[in-house]
């Protein structure tokens, strides 16, 4: 058993309502499909309304004399057919769609937060409103014109000045850079008569860009250890002349430091890595960049697979790379693939410095000048050859603990280098 509705039919073009002049059936009457159930009068026609179903009149909703809109309910008829299946299906669908609605609501989609309409941008500029601080009431977090109008009306404008956050909207950022470039054009450093202007080109420009990038992207931290290399100095001074004679190039202290660093990196691969936004890439190869200066230029050629090489091999390669750099013969391949940089700042006499990391590496080690200093050994003063090793580290990748361990290991390796332990070949 199911109750079906009979609605006011359309009884002619332009007819939108009809008045029931009389019911031809009463509640409880059994009727067949197409039997007339009511007489209806419109301003165009008078007509009989046929039943759409076979069944029993259950309820007359409209009264005689009532004017009913086309499509509105006139009466209910109880039919034999069951339509429960249909209704249950409907409710099921309804429930599903409701569920979807709920899910959609709960997921806070902010993808439209920074999509500004012309009206929003104009209002924000005219009223100096920082859009970053405005909560959008529109779809997917979009800031609407109404949102801004409300803010303007309330008089509590979130302006740039009041904030301490450095976040800014793209438009404002543009504006800022525009003004800085404009300002630098007008009031930047200008040269006085007698000053020399050197155009920034080529390698100088590349160095500048790399340094800026490194300092802007990488949060630097620093750490320095002091190493006693008296034994190493003694040994190296013993053999340096014969080595030069035999091999044709000098045996520098730097080769020993590079060797020690390569070995320590093998044990602390954390320092031999790169920041890649959502991950940290630990490099398998140990390719050490070394800084080589030439006039106004600075090159960082690479000793590939430094961990595979003997001290002699390293010394040879340093020599070759330095020669190439000075004669301008370094190739792209010579500079590629560095995973860690060792910088021989000691050659300039520096005893302490804070290096700028060679982007995108994780750290740089400055090997400072070896200086003879009075130290206390076994509670007595002793003249010792001392060197500072200064490490700059990417604090996103590295922390003090691992760097401290790494430096301690380098220190240990270097302090144990003497004629009995070193094999330069």
């Amino acid at each position, binding site marked *: 058993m199911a109750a079906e509705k009979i609605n006011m039919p*359309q009884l002619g*073009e*332009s*007819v*939108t*309502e009809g008045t029931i002049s009389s019911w031809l059936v009463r509640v409880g009457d059994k009727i067949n499909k197409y039997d007339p159930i009511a007489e209806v009068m*419109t*301003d*165009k026609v008078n007509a009989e309304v046929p039943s759409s179903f076979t069944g029993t009149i259950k309820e007359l909703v409209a009264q005689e004399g009532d004017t009913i809109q086309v499509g509105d309910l006139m009466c209910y008829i109880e039919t034999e057919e069951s339509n429960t299946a249909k209704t249950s299906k409907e409710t099921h669908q309804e429930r599903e769609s409701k569920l979807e609605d709920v899910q959609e609501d709960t997921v806070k989609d902010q993808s439209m937060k920074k999509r500004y*309409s*012309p*009206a*929003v941008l*104009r209002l924000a500029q005219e009223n100096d409103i920082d859009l970053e601080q405005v909560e959008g009431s*529109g*779809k997917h977090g*979009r800031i*609407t*014109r*109404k949102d801004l109008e409300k803010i303007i009306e309330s008089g509590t404008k979130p302006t740039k000045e009041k904030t301490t956050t450095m976040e800014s909207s793209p438009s404002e950022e543009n504006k800022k850079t525009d003004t800085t470039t404009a300002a630098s054009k007008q009031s930047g450093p200008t040269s006085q008569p007698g000053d020399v202007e050197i155009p920034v080109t080529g390698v100088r420009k590349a160095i500048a860009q790399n340094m800026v990038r490194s300092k802007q992207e990488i949060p630097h931290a620093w750490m320095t250890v002091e190493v006693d290399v008296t034994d190493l100095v003694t040994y190296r001074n013993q053999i340096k002349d014969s080595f030069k004679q035999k091999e044709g190039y000098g045996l520098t202290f730097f080769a020993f430091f590079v060797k020690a660093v390569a070995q320590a990196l093998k044990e602390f691969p954390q320092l031999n890595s790169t920041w890649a936004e959502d991950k940290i890439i630990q490099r398998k190869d140990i390719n050490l960049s070394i800084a080589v200066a030439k006039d106004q230029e600075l090159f960082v050629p690479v000793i590939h697979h430094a961990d595979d090489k003997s001290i002699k091999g390293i010394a040879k390669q340093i020599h070759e790379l330095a020669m190439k750099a000075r004669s301008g013969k370094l190739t792209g391949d010579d500079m590629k693939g560095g995973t860690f940089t060792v910088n021989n700042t000691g050659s300039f006499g520096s005893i302490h410095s804070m290096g700028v990391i060679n982007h995108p590496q994780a750290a740089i080690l400055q090997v400072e000048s070896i200086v003879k200093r009075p130290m206390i050994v076994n509670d007595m003063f002793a003249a010792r050859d001392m060197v500072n090793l200064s490490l700059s580290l990417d604090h996103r990748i590295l922390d003090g603990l691992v760097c401290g361990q790494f430096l301690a290991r380098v220190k240990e390796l270097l302090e144990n280098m003497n004629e009995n332990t070193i094999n330069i070949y």
Partner: protein
Amino acid sequence: MPVMSYIQAVTAALREEMQRDENVFVLGEDVGKKGGVFRATDGLFDEFGEARVLDTPLAESAIAGVGIGAAMYGLRPVAEMQFADFIMPAVNQIISEAAKIRYRSNNDWNVPMTIRAPYGGGVHGALYHSQSVEAVFANQPGLKIVMPSTPYDVKGLLKASIRDNDPVLFFEHKRAYRLLKGEVPEEDYVLPIGKADIKREGSDITIITYGLCVHFALQAAEKLAEEGIDAHILDLRTVYPLDKEAIIDAATKTGKVLLVTEDNKEGSIIGEVAAIIAENCLFDLDAPVQRLAGPEIPSMPYAPTMEKYFMINPDKVEKAMKELAEF
């Protein structure tokens, strides 16, 4: 003030203008004795006689042509096209002659004629009894196209059309004839042709439309008001030439604009409205201008389900309004 249906307002305007000016006469198919298939000219034949209420042959070209001739001669004909769909045989007369005669004759001649035609669907009229034809005429300088939405506007604008010294196409929505009722003053009044009218003041979204769709928009607006969405509704009333100032004001008011027409979307009146907004309102817009219109289908289908699919209705308008409000 008496309450009248939309079609009663048509009849009242015709009767009053015929009483006021003996140069006004009516011609069309079945407009005489029968009083029109929709009863728009009901009673006029008895009151004014066969000389001023002319039954014509089934020849729309002749209805327009006779009207143009009579108008140029000094009379004020009100020609009825039984359905707007039937106006096509008269297009040459209307566009090539009526619209251009003042320009062509350097102001020596003019055509003070009104052509009335019922348009629009939703009445199971199918292909040849449901079309919206206004866009066909809406790039013909020299013509005016009036499409009122309420009985009050019908009376005031039909009188203005009859008194206008140039040809006016006056399209009446046939579903509105008996659906829409409203207060209409008994006294004589005219409304300005070329002026749009704000049918509802609101601050959240702007709906610009005309004809029966104004009514749908008003219904939807009432529903949405319960949800806190405040709609501003502009009734174009004259769809050619458009009231640019009113369109710009309405679009600027909220920055979120929904344009509605029952006509097929592409090339419709609202496309021109969108262009006016694009030219003038960029820095006030808060959302892409939205259009709600009929599909690109040759004409209204007969099957009720398909007619429902084609037709604009309050639910469709409400959905579009809500989406725009939430944007």
